[in-house]
């Protein structure tokens, strides 16, 4: 047995306010416990409903290390089922997406299931008569996750049967999803194409932390954004020439510290938070003709202005996604091992919105987050150097102390200086909470 299983005290000791122990990034036992506890107790992103628009449409993915299927049932609701045949374990679907019609059929012995998972039929069923089969778990069909919520098109699930409600888990942080969806004049988003998929040899939490790390862009991205600004200057365009879209996207990465300090960071309970309370790198994109008019038509002038006036930068939904409301992007950090993470970067189109905005978002996605990106590389390089560097013995703590205040309380919303590392501390506060809340003895320990 390892050091951390059923040992809430040892897990709590890994986060000392302004620092965390390296084991949270490099220890494979902790990775397994994260999958067992954190990813079961938290609400985790699955997919978008537009990936399964018709009855029988399915999409396969994973929640933590658990293979799942998002499927549109015959009643029109989206269900989330574990991707495992209740007979002998065969994955029911193996392709990423498709349509299964009215039922799933296992390719091994042809057990079939309704699209809500219920067992439909077994060939040669009489072989199970008088065997007590009806009392087995297998007779229940494909197992569903503990709970599913479709929030404005985004499908989340909680693997655990019981636990925190969706509303309590996300609380005020849902305002970022609201803003992203409200930017569609129809109040709806649709997924635009497949996601970028980028394999990182580092712990998933390094990626999540980096989403609100505002002191790295001007350093790590100098080579791309700084070079872009320099090249643009050398072209010596006449004063007032509008920046091409690519420059609009990349130039703000070189903004000075002051810009990031003033943008602000907001944190919410349970590990959620966002950068760009007052402004962000997305604030100064040029207007798309006709878009504002459509928005005013849908929402009225005041509300339309309020929606488009909000320019949040990155919103972290703990544990493992980030969204960019102003450009309708979502990135999911899928943990494969302590030192392996797949990043999938999705974009969405605004239903009834201008296609130019989708084009800008697609450009952002490929320029910044592709395996071929000139920006994403420099982030990956830093994570992977850290993943290796953390093995140095005798120096076992990672510092997250910038603008730390002793006795910080994460149980309420707070807005602070945009360079604080409070959001990283907030994540670890939630990490301890959802790692330990269903461990033996945690109740007593809490007293």
């Amino acid at each position, binding site marked *: 047995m390892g050091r951390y299983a059923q040992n809430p005290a040892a897990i709590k000791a890994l986060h000392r306010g302004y620092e965390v122990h390296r084991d949270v990034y490099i220890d494979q036992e902790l990775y397994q416990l994260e999958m067992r506890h954190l990813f079961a107790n938290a609400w985790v992103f699955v997919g978008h409903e537009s990936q399964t628009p018709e009855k029988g449409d399915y999409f396969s993915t994973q929640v933590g290390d658990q293979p799942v299927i998002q499927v549109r049932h015959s009643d029109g609701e989206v269900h989330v089922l574990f991707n495992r045949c209740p007979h002998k374990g065969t994955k029911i679907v193996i392709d*990423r997406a498709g349509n299964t019609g009215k039922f799933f059929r296992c390719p091994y012995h042809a057990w079939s299931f309704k699209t809500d998972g219920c067992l439909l039929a077994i060939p040669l069923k009489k072989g199970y008569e008088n065997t007590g089969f009806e009392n087995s778990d297998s007779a229940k069909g494909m197992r569903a996750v503990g709970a599913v919520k479709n929030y404005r098109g985004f499908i989340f699930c909680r693997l655990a049967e019981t636990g925190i409600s969706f509303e309590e888990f996300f609380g005020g942080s849902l305002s970022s999803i609201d803003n992203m969806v409200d930017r569609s004049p129809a109040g709806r988003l649709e997924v*635009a*194409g*497949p*996601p*970028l*998929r*980028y*394999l990182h040899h580092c712990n998933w939490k390094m990626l999540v932390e980096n989403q609100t790390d505002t002191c790295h862009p001007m350093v*790590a991205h*100098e*080579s*791309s954004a*700084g*070079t*872009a600004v*320099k*090249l643009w200057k050398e072209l010596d365009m006449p004063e007032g020439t509008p920046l*091409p879209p*690519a420059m609009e996207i990349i130039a703000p990465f070189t903004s000075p510290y002051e810009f990031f300090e003033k943008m602000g960071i907001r944190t919410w309970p349970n590990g959620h938070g966002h950068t760009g309370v007052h402004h962000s790198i997305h604030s100064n994109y040029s207007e798309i003709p006709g878009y504002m008019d459509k928005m005013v038509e849908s929402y009225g002038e005041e509300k339309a202005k309020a929606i488009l006036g909000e320019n949040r930068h990155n919103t972290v939904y703990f544990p493992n996604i980030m969204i960019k409301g102003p450009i309708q992007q979502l990135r999911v950090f899928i943990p494969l091992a302590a030192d392996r993470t*797949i990043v999938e*970067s999705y*974009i969405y*189109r605004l239903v009834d919105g201008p*296609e130019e905005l*989708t*084009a800008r978002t*697609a*450009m952002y*996605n*490929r*320029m910044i987050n*592709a*395996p*071929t990106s*000139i920006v994403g*590389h*420099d982030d*990956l*390089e*830093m994570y992977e150097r850290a993943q290796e560097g953390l093995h140095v013995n005798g120096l076992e703590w990672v510092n997250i102390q910038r603008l730390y205040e002793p006795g910080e309380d994460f149980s309420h919303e707070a807005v602070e200086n945009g360079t604080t590392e409070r959001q990283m501390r907030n994540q670890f506060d939630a990490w301890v909470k959802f790692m330990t809340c269903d461990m033996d003895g945690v109740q007593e320990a809490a007293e």
Partner: protein
Amino acid sequence: MTISKDQLIDFIYDEVRMLDEGRYDEWLALWLKDGHYWMPLDYKQTDPFSVTSLMYEDLFMLKLRVERLNGARTFSQKPKSRCHHVIQRPFVDAMDEAAGTYVTTTFMHYVETRLDEQTLLALTARHELALVDGALRIANKRVDILNCDAAFRNIQLLP
């Protein structure tokens, strides 16, 4: 002036050699001003704009890529990546003598390496070439990756 099939084929061989040898200034000079380098994300993708691609870059972006590779503070290029192409004899798909435009398709294996890692990609490159002022130039280049839907490690150079 007319261009022979052999000249088109030699052009493709010369281009990959420039890339493998890191002669990027010469490579950039091959491009027409409004050309695009497109690497789709999806198999048989037809739209470079409203869904994501791996690359869809104009000459400004390609220059930026090359400058960045040479930059002093490009941390992810310390040490630098190296690449290597093995190409089949290009197919000449179209030759329009009057317009001076040509299309070739080339199957290739592309290897990129840095530190202890090495990636192999199977590629199909489609070149649109044009004869301008007596020289062949790249009007557009599309590179399809056989396993485009896989999760990739870094692709830092130009396949």
